[in-house]
């Protein structure tokens, strides 16, 4: 009886607290409260599912992501964020099962990836913005609900004899808690792995006393002591995190011209060539002088190139991921004056320690990591008029391959700066430059020390770019490479790229994408989950699943 799955587009990844359907954001001095109150009727495919029991879909998570980012930029005064529920007795029931069961495979994968990135963003806010996220579970947190709590720095569960934390995915749905749950249990919270095994197979989970003993939560309060207890925890977090600023920077809506062939922003253009299954993603350099002081930077606010260009880049990437499944190869271009890029980079670097400058760089890092985690081939094309320098050179390093035109007068160049020295770590914690030169670590320092433009011949010689064809060969080389790439199995390419990109040691973050998500995506394809009698298919239906008992 499999459910009908449906194609889904995401019209917009932007929202604003004034328009939230599913969250209530209130700010009281240094403490923000983000209360989940999902409107069941406002699912993105309201005909297919109802968002009952504070369950979520993409729309709910877009709002959550918006809140995470806005708190950082618009409310730097906030030092503690309390995530809780405005629905009685339920904190959150996780991703909506009906939504998952009626979604296409690709959408499910992208949904999980996006939600994982949002939760990584929560951890990043705690770590780098001094905004400590606290999960105040005033009702049962199951599945993705508990996984959201796991992304917070501390978890408190109400001790009312009823409310529990649980990961029922394996026993009830035949899938994994794939939004970081398994990884964070053992790698982040260091729950003993045999204890975690018990927890992950017990559908109804554990209530406060046991949950605390098993380290599933950090503490609990009775119903009558709840408000005061949570307030105290938030106050303690505030006390640990020195005040940063009192005035934030508003994030206005992006200005974009949307057409069937792409999206055009001020600094970014995304052009879709559906026939060839190729997209061109271009980032343009800033015009005009870089802000010379913290005040000048603040005056530019969200319009400053370093922030605006990367907000646009993020939005373009998300649209490619969700709304252009057929695009296999994304070609990265840059355009403009390299000196202007370097000047804007330098302005931010000089202002290191200023909260807004730091936030912008941190944000650029998150956008670059979205590229690392995007399941499309990236080729960087370094041509005349390009500006792959400094921050934008990270695009070359993020790409699976790079092609640099070797022109006669040696005008095409790239430049590696301190931007590649540690400001933008990958999920592994390593820099893209160190990963690039994993086999020749000495080169990292050499390249960073050069401090000047590098032409194509040298770049190829050093190994900074993959190929450097001359003007005669360029067109054919590049065209054939793209056509060849676009003709290979998309699944094999995704697997290959993800394996080759993340050189080096694993972290919690890479395990979430590389181990947890990868297994989840395997399970999502298997009959035991999504076949006619699979557990996910039949969840909520009167029939019980029938498994193929053979293990691999």
């Amino acid at each position, binding site marked *: 009886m499999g459910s009908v799955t449906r194609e889904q587009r995401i019209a917009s990844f932007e929202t604003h607290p004034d328009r939230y359907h599913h969250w209530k954001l209130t700010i009281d001095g240094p403490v923000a409260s983000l209360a989940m109150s999902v409107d069941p009727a406002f699912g993105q495919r309201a005909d297919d599912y109802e968002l009952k029991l504070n369950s979520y879909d993409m729309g709910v998570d877009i709002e959550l992501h918006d809140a995470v980012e806005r708190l950082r930029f618009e409310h730097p005064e906030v030092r503690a964020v309390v995530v809780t529920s405005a629905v009685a007795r339920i904190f959150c029931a996780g991703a909506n099962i009906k939504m998952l069961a009626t979604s296409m495979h690709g959408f499910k994968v992208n949904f999980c990836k996006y939600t994982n990135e949002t939760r990584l963003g929560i951890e990043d806010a705690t770590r780098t913005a001094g905004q400590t996220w606290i999960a105040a579970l005033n009702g049962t947190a199951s599945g993705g609900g508990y996984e959201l709590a796991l992304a917070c720095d501390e978890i408190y569960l109400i*001790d*009312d*004899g*009823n409310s529990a934390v649980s990961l029922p995915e394996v*026993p009830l749905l035949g899938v994994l808690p794939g939004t970081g749950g398994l990884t964070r249990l053992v790698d982040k919270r260091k729950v003993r792995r045999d204890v975690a095994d018990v927890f992950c197979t*017990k*559908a*109804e989970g554990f209530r406060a006393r046991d949950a605390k003993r098993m380290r599933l939560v950090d503490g609990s309060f*009775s*119903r*009558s*002591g709840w408000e005061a207890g949570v307030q105290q925890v938030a106050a303690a977090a505030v006390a640990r995190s020195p005040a940063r600023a009192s005035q934030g920077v508003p994030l206005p809506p992006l200005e974009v011209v949307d057409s069937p062939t792409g999206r055009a922003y001020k600094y970014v253009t995304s052009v879709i060539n559906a026939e060839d299954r190729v997209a061109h993603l271009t980032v343009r350099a800033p015009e005009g002088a870089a802000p010379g002081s913290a005040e000048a930077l603040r005056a530019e606010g969200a319009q400053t190139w370093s922030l605006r260009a990367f907000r646009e880049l993020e939005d373009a990437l998300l649209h490619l991921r969700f709304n252009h499944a057929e695009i296999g190869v994304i070609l990265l271009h840059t355009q403009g004056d390299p000196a202007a890029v370097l000047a804007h980079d330098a302005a931010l670097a000089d202002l290191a320690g200023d909260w807004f400058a730091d936030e912008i760089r941190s944000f650029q890092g998150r956008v670059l990591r979205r590229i690392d985690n995007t399941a499309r081939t990236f080729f960087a094309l370094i041509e005349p008029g390009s500006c792959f320098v400094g921050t934008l050179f990270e695009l070359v390093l993020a790409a699976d391959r790079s092609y640099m035109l070797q022109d006669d007068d040696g005008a095409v160049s790239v430049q590696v700066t301190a931007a590649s020295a540690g400001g933008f770590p990958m999920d592994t914690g390593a820099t893209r430059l160190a990963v690039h030169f994993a086999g020749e670590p000495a080169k990292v320092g050499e390249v960073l020390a050069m401090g000047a433009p590098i032409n194509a011949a040298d770049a190829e010689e050093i190994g900074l770019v993959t190929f450097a064809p001359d003007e005669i060969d360029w067109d054919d080389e590049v065209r054939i490479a793209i056509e060849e790439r676009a003709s290979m199995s998309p699944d094999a390419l995704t697997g290959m790229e993800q394996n080759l990109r993340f050189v080096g040691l694993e972290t919690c973050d890479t395990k979430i994408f590389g181990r947890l998500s990868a297994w989840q995506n395997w399970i999502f394809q298997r009959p035991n989950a999504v076949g006619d009698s699979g557990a996910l298919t039949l*969840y*909520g*239906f*009167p*029939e*019980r699943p029938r498994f193929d008992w053979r293990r691999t």
Partner: protein
Amino acid sequence: MTAIDYEARIPNNVDLASDKRLQRALEKWQPAFLDWWGAMGPEGFQGRDVFLRTAVSAHADGWAVFDYVKMPDYRWGIFLSDRVPDRKIAFGDHAGLPAWQEVPGEYRNMLQRLIVTQADTEPASVEQQRYLGQTAPSLYDLRNLFQVNVEEGRHLWAMVYLLQAYFGRTGHEEADALLVRRSGDADHPRILDAFNQKCPDWLTFFCFTTFTDRDGKYQLGALAESGFDPLARTCRFMLTEEAHHLFVGEKGVQRVLTRSAELTALDPNGDARNQGGIDLDTIQKYVNYWFSYSLDLFGGEISSNAADFFASGLKGRWKEESKYEDHICTDAVQMVPVYRDGRLVEEAVPLRNAMNEVLRQEYADDCDKVVGRWNRALESAGSSFRIKLPSTRFHRRQGIYADQAYSPDGEPISSELFEANRSRWLPTDADRAYVASLMTRGVYEPGKVAHWISPPDKGIDGRPAEFEYVRLT
């Protein structure tokens, strides 16, 4: 220290005397139960002789033995109905296979949850009713209250037996937790909402035993069909006791109705309150309140839990085996009125997912019959007033009708209209205060009854109504 004589202390038919493991578990739990009874059982009267029935065996000659007993000495026993030889699972995906004599690992958690939820209601109602002895309208009623209370205690024992005997460590922990939660407690409430409501007066008590204990009857009936045989047998025996609780409720309300009809007729303005009685409109409001609260106990109208419970063979329908032909129910649907775009439309719900609703409808039909009998009593008393059972959509706080207001007839209405009529449909604070004002102290003289209620038409166990059911001297 001498070994406890289990047969004498805890009458049972589960061979407790030779079950060392169960003895160990109960040795620890029994003192905790007695502590709980002391703290949360009936306030006062614990040292008094009460004319109670005790079950000393599961058979006709032993399930109702009447004698004077002091409540703390009541012998809370463990009884299962006789085993049906070669019993098969009657419904769901395992229909036709032998009934489980041990907990099937696959359904352990689900089963435990079912049992804990049922078990939690038993001590809860004792807690809710603990002060009522102070205001009893007669010794007869006082005795009935205590009978219900000790039997709810025994129902707790019955459920705890299953947890202790079949569920290992988590079963022991859940058994302990049943004595920790408290009805209405802010920090450790009972699991279900109706069991956290106050039961401050005797009209409430009679409505509660009519409507909320009747939910118990249907839940037990559905569990009596369970493929887990020890649960089925336990519940079958509990049902025999439950019948008395329902009797106490139904007859109690009926006696109030009869008296109210008399006092209404007596009063020149037709106002029973002027005559020191409860007016019929107020009784109707209490009925509306407790019927709707009890409906919530059946769970969501469209429920995947309900489907799972049925599919796994753990919880059937009322009289599943004898009443139905199709015990698989994968192809059938149930029509359920659902509110869509401003009106109610009938929607087909897969039958398994609608099992809560199927049970709820059985229950509502049964309640309808009770109301029919009340109305005949009103007729006999010469009153033209008729009690009317509200729609199952009225005043719901759980399930698909919780988000929209409905009139007592079940018509969708605006929440403004509902609020405007709230005081006509549901008891107000003033109504409750008035009812309580009639019941400020107990009537303890044998044969006497309070002014606001009729005497019972007969006594207990063939004794006359004026029998000294509770010895207060």
